């Protein structure tokens, strides 16, 4: 069993949004030439051929996603996405899986907040087969009732199992739910045990009819393939898909929270407290993106960041401390997350808050700023190395309507960010007086500590939602 020295789940949390400046060679990193084909029914096809290894990657996005989930039925889009491959075309669920696995391929469906997603990778020789499977799944899913029942039960049981696992995997879900309480961004993409139980096959069929169609479809293909034959097949397979009947979900921005409120998620017997401090941060297209990413890198986005230096390197309170910025179409969260043994909960949260205060009071010195610029520059190229990375990058460009300069120009923006811009960008992280706090831990031992940070609400980790009952 491998034990990593440090796990930075999203080190360059934003590969797409990150890039750089240091060396001349890294500034030349840019997307390869790719071709965009618009089909008459609205399908956007993006083609990025490259000879590297004999494999092909496809990213498929259907605009809309989990934000279109009906209230109280969170998880609808995600369940639908999973059901698409549980039997499609003339294959039942087992035959479909056997065909994908038999070719040595991978094909995974899911839903993010803004799109239903499919990611496929396969050997070049199987391009025709795998594209036809994608078409079957999207256009001709069987939507079998027995398969639906299994999936829904599986999803509910999976959440319970996850709650017995490493709480690092859940703290973000609870934190989003608490920060965005009552707002669509607070709803878990994969649903919770309560919402999943209310979803019916009819809900999925209605969602599919309203939210899926050729006009919402983006197909991005990268790797070792023949563009002409792939284009012809996509026209044949997807060119006849009609339009979605419903409107795309619309979301308004949530204002930044004032003051503090605290959620304590009781996990009796836990030997460690997992915590998040968050507020509203930035959004996709923010002109301050590059400057904010420099702040994020220096504050909590790398091993020598201010947070990791204080909480891990200097004090040994934790295995890891980091910050992150989520950019959706509307502002997402800017957060700090870490964990520490139960006894040092107060020391670690206090130190995280003090470090946040220091960011705002002292800012970044020039040495740190230059280091952050070089760091982003050095870590960006590997985020565009493989066919799946390229397919994903250009698909999401299309989803947001960005031009390629969103990626190609990024390193230049990072290099050009002035100290003044970076100083101003610190406000992407909240003032410590305005924080939404979440802790997962042994409530009997840390209740008093958590109460000290603001008005306290409690729930149990076994509660079937990720937020307290309204």
């Amino acid at each position, binding site marked *: *069993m491998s034990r990593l020295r440090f796990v930075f789940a999203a080190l360059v949390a934003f590969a797409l949004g990150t890039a750089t400046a240091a060396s001349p060679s*890294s500034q030349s990193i840019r997307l390869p030439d790719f071709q965009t084909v618009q089909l008459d029914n609205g399908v956007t096809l993006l083609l990025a051929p490259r000879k590297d290894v004999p494999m092909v990657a496809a990213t498929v996005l259907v605009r809309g996603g989990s934000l279109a989930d009906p209230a109280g039925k969170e998880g609808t889009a995600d369940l639908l996405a999973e059901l698409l491959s549980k039997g499609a075309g003339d294959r039942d669920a087992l035959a479909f899986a056997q065909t994908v696995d038999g070719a040595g391929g991978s094909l995974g469906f899911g839903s993010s907040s803004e799109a239903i997603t499919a990611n496929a990778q396969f050997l070049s020789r199987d391009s025709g087969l795998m594209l036809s499977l994608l078409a079957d799944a999207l256009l001709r899913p069987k939507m079998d009732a027995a398969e639906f029942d299994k999936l829904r039960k599986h999803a509910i049981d*999976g959440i319970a199992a996850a709650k017995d696992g490493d709480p690092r995997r859940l703290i973000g879900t609870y934190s989003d739910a608490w920060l965005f309480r009552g707002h669509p961004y607070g709803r878990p993409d994969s649903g919770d045990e309560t919402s999943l139980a209310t979803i019916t096959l009819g809900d999925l069929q209605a969602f599919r009819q309203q939210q899926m169609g050729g006009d919402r479809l983006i197909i991005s293909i990268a790797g070792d393939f023949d563009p002409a034959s792939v284009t012809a097949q996509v026209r044949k397979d997807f060119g006849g898909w009609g339009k979605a009947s419903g409107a795309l979900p619309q979301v308004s921005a949530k204002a930044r929270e004032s003051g503090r409120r605290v959620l304590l998620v009781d996990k009796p017997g836990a030997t460690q407290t997992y915590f998040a401090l968050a507020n509203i941060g930035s959004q996709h297209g923010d002109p301050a993106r590059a400057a904010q990413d420099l702040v994020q890198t220096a504050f909590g986005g790398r091993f020598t960041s201010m947070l990791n230096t204080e909480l891990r390197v200097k004090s040994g309170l*934790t295995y890891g401390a980091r910050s992150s910025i989520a950019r959706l179409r509307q502002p997402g969260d800017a957060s700090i997350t870490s964990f*520490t043994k139960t006894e040092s909960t107060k020391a670690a949260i206090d130190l995280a808050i003090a470090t946040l205060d220091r960011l705002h009071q002292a800012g970044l010195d020039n040495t740190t700023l230059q280091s952050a610029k070089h760091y982003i520059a*050095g870590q960006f190229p590997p985020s565009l190395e493989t066919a799946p990375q390229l397919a994903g990058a250009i698909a999401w460009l299309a989803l947001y309507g960005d031009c390629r300069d969103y990626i190609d120009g990024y390193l230049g923006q990072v290099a050009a960010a002035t100290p003044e811009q970076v100083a101003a960008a610190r406000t992407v992280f909240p003032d410590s007086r305005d924080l939404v706090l979440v802790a997962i831990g042994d409530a009997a031992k840390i209740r008093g500590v958590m109460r000290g940070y603001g008005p306290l*609400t409690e729930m149990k980790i076994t509660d079937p939602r990720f937020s307290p009952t309204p």
Partner: protein
Amino acid sequence: MRLLPLACAFALGTAAFAAHAATPAPSISASVPGSGAIVSKTLANGLTIIVWPDHDIPSANYYTFYKVGSRNEHAGITGLAHFFEHMMFNGTTRRKPGEFDRTMEAAGGSNNASTSNDLTIYTDWFPSSALETIFDLEGDRMANLAFDPKVVESERGVVYSERRSSVDNDSMGTLMEQMQATAWLAHPYQIPTIGWPSDIEHWKSDDLRQFFKTYYAPNNAVLVVAGDVDPAQVFQLADTYLATLPRQPEPTPITTVEPEQLGERRIVVERADAQSPIVAYAFHSGIGAGSKDYPTLELLTTILAQGQSSRLHQRLVEKEQAAVDAGAFAEAGFDPGLLWVYAALPPGGDTGKVEALLDDELAKIARTGVSAAELDKARNLKLSEFWREMATINGKASALGSYQVFNGDYRKAFAAPAAFEAVTAARIQALAAKVLRVQNRTTGLLKPTAAAETTITKEGAR
């Protein structure tokens, strides 16, 4: 205190020079684009260096494989290899604690490291313009590591925090640790890589120094550099920064051979904070990573568990709906390892039923073997895996280093697809019959013991 005083290192280093001219890879690698450009050589101090130039992106990787892991530990110093993984970042006689990371990140690089039963692997990812900086940093810590007592104490807390998350607060982590300690009677594979808590609390600086001197020597390491580099420059930098490091006595070989298991071992782990039971089996595979039978073992676990159409997923998750997740994987290093089979149950799940299902499925593959279609599928899955690894400089460095340390020759990495093609259905069946026996396994059950509690929500309790 310096472990290797500079004067000593320099004196010994005067005789250090390239023992062999760089040699290109033979034609077996020609099927992988760019593999013909691989070169390697071994320095006089025993450090093997492999370079794969690849100019797709202006980046490079520097991977150091040290042949040390938890199998090299004993009671009192369990977890030391992993702790050492941390300490290799914490200062030298030339650089203060933290300077390694600060210097690397300022040059655009990042790093990490991992420890297993068998290896400790240090990984650097950086713009190729930082190549010399990386050599300087890595050469320094291989030669001049320091052990500041304050840093040792602080890092102890870090490692303990890591243990709490990955083992103590994680049902699967807890169960696997207990099963590993039960499955091995004699071999040090019984030691958890993260270490037992009391050992984490009691390592001494002298333990670290001795461990460093023994294992972190050039003759106990393999270096792989892949990416946007010129091999001649890599070797020149290696001569400057690494060739002067002294060879150390060869570590004492691990000679313990696990005696044959004489019957099933069963353990039950009870957790008050869990909702979901787990059933797991650990079989002695009898196969190490360098064994000719290793591809057969890999195909067996692939057929059992990889993909939605795999046997275990179909039977336990889809057909019987008795488990949320079911899987299998094999651990294999310098010595034969364990083949793990597991099923995660829903809350209230019936562990007896799941055991019976697992038993039936495992008996079936031993009794009736695998179909031609299943074998083809498994080979194709392994072929895709091979090409995915070859698609990145990170994967290339990892593959070359792994084959070099476990198989004695990085070139064997390129023979993997052919090795999988050569495995027959009969060999898979025979291996299943030999390994998947109840007498050869440790059975682990994780049982939640908490009574169901009602939802309690306290709003605004302050």
